[in-house]
């Protein structure tokens, strides 16, 4: 099975531009709020109509602007898990699930409920369910309608932290068993890494090249990918006439080749107060901060406005004026729209 979507849509503040092909795998779309992620799913499911393009699912044309084809959502067989689950508030769990079933099969509903440990909730209304139970109900309702692909819109954003992790594991199990194209939209890095095979970053409506999740983590190529990979220190870079790259926020100059580089980034654990190499950034106003992931040194670059974060052992606190890094750890990031 495969889902192919390539379309454009003019939105208020930017143009949505999506090219995506998903086989039986989970592809994530990562991006900040308002980047156009949900709109992408709405276009694929038929809730919204793109301006131009082609959307196909298992060889069926769902949308084709050239041939004037635009199937209504009802005929697309696209499962959609909404951010707030969108359960029907006036129907019980059972009625919610039955609503989308082509053949109203009560035994099948019972089986679904048993598998998801919801048997006790069969006659409850959505308002009487916990966050996790609501999500499971919405998942069952979606699966029971026998869709050909699944679109998951920020499925964990409405949940408490502890619950979130558990349901993420459940979702992982579920996605493993399902051989259908799945698109997961999220602004949560952990979710993306734990759940997806491949990931594409979206910025200002533009979906960048989709790459293997591990590759993105190891070698982020763009600014959004660097954020996704957990790179804390990112700053714009300018190519100077002498060929070097100048990072104004850090008042730092590096010798590096490469085209279209617009930003540089370095992970906090790749910066060190010890002299691990000849490359360093001069800093001032350093301050120790305690976080969940250990201690870090937060400081300002000397002669620049940008802040830098560096992992540090709590014992080594004293005044520093240099942060060292290995040249190969400096990420050179391209413009997000590099291939457009």
């Amino acid at each position: 099975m495969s889902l192919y979507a390539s379309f454009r849509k003019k939105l208020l503040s930017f143009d949505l531009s999506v090219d995506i092909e998903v086989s039986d795998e989970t592809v994530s779309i990562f991006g900040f709020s308002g980047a156009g992620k949900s709109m992408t799913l709405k276009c694929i499911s038929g809730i919204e109509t793109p301006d131009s393009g082609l959307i196909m699912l298992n060889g069926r044309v769902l949308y084709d602007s050239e041939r004037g084809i635009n199937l209504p959502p009802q005929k697309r067989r696209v499962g959609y898990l909404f951010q707030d689950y969108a359960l029907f508030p006036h129907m019980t769990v059972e009625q919610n699930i039955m609503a989308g079933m082509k053949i109203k099969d009560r035994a099948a509903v019972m089986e679904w409920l048993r598998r998801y440990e919801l048997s006790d909730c069969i006659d409850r209304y959505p308002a009487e369910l916990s966050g996790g139970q609501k999500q499971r109900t919405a998942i069952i309702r979606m699966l029971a309608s026998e869709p050909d692909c699944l679109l998951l819109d920020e499925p964990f954003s409405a949940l408490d932290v502890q619950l979130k992790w558990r349901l993420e594991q459940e979702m992982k199990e579920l996605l493993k068993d399902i051989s259908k194209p799945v698109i997961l939209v999220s602004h949560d890095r952990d979710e993306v890494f734990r759940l997806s095979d491949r990931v594409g970053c979206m910025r200002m409506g533009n979906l960048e090249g989709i790459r293997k999740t591990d590759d993105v983590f190891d070698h982020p190529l763009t600014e959004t990918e660097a954020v996704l990979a957990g790179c804390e220190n990112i700053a714009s870079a300018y190519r100077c006439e002498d060929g070097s790259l100048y990072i104004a926020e850090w008042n730092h100059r590096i010798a590096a080749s490469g085209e279209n580089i617009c930003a540089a980034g370095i992970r906090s654990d790749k910066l060190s107060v010890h002299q691990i190499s000849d490359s360093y950034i001069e800093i001032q106003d350093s301050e120790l901060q305690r976080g969940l992931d250990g201690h870090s040194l937060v400081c300002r670059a000397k002669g620049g406005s940008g802040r830098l974060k560096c992992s540090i052992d709590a014992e080594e606190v004293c005044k520093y004026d240099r942060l060292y890094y290995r040249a190969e750890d400096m990420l050179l990031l391209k413009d997000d729209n590099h291939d457009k």
Partner: protein
Amino acid sequence: MLTFLSELDWSPLWISLKTGIAATIISFFMGIYFARYVVNARGRRKSVIDAILTLPIVLPPTVAGFILLRIFGLRRPMGAFLLEALDIKVVQTWLGCVIAATVISFPLMYHNAKSAFEQIDCSIIHAAETLGMSNHEIFWRIQLPLAKPGIMSGIVLTFARALGEYGATAMLAGNIPGRTSTISQRIAMVIQDGDYQTAGFWTVIVILIGFAIIVWVRLLTDKEK
């Protein structure tokens, strides 16, 4: 008192109730139909139709009555056609009462139904669509049940407004005792004649009906909770 009651002409009560019920039934179906249409419509057409359907409630009832008279008047094309082709007379008849009350009270039904439909979370409708439910199914099984509280209060307000309609009714249907003389018109008439006893009696009746409506609405909304 007994002689007053036994000599009283009760017809205004029945004419008012009949008019109110008929107007409410017509407004109910038309209001829901147009509310659904406008909620689904887009762009300029939506605002134009919305404005036209809302107009009767901001117009003075006499203006609405005058317009209706110009439409259904026996010497006007529409009125003449109805009389000749279908033998239907609107002016000075009970049908006129119903049409006047419907036109004036309809916007209440329409508006309540419309805002009830609009308050339904879009993602619920979208979810129903992606689950493969037909538009017909979505309307009957999702939209209508979820809009029920708003529609119920629309029914009550429409009935109350239709029951008390005076201005447009007086112009279109006139005040013919036993045929088009509603409670409101009867009160106006007897006051002109200085008959404060009858006016007071009908006032009490109207207050009782109004009170009953309020209690009924309260019971309904409490049950919803």
